[in-house]
């Protein structure tokens, strides 16, 4: 069956612009996670969704970052007023519930000029 789908696969934008990253999880997976992978920080948790609600947003680095999930399915991670330190690969993962293994998408590589 289809895996976790992320779009775009690559995004290049100018500093100060807003970006939206999309994640389409595996059908039926109620849990959805966003992670960030960067050279300096490794893999870091950003936010967790259970259905449409986000009980854990503790990993979001600043108020420029926000995320939503609609219909218990697609999620969008938005970064406002991008900075160069936002350059990273943003990975989305989903699982049947929070106690099941997570399946990852191929990520969105974000480059801030």
């Amino acid at each position: 069956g289809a895996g976790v789908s992320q779009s775009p696969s690559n995004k290049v934008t100018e500093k100060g612009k807003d970006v939206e990253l999309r994640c389409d999880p595996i059908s039926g997976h109620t849990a959805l996670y966003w992670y960030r992978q960067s050279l300096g920080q490794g893999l870091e948790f950003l936010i967790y969704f259970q259905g449409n609600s986000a009980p854990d947003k503790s990993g979001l680095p600043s108020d420029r970052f926000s995320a939503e999930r609609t219909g218990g399915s697609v999620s969008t991670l938005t970064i406002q007023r991008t900075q160069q330190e936002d350059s990273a690969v943003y990975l989305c993962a989903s699982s049947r519930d929070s106690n099941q293994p997570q399946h990852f998408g191929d990520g969105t590589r974000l480059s801030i000029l």
Partner: protein
Amino acid sequence: AQSVTQPDIHITVSEGASLELRCNYSYGATPYLFWYVQSPGQGLQLLLKYFSGDTLVQGIKGFEAEFKRSQSSFNLRKPSVHWSDAAEYFCAVQTGGTSYGKLTFGQGTILTVHP
């Protein structure tokens, strides 16, 4: 807070040789433990997981890992490495309760395979 340490940043082995990648974790109880593999430009693929029970777990692609509670370790092994195993490997832990299943990752180990 939990943490994961992968002591080896980069390992090089010859094709056909055995492999062991080390992982140590710090957590007050026994977490769920995972190994993921990442090829360039791709996401993470789950190799194997330990939740409970038998401490030697088998995964995909001929990999296995052994959980040792006394050493807080979960080392990944493969008896004979193939060139296609070259990739970056991540150990991760998942704790219960209010962590909501989020994964804490080690820094990763890059595996190079020589022909």
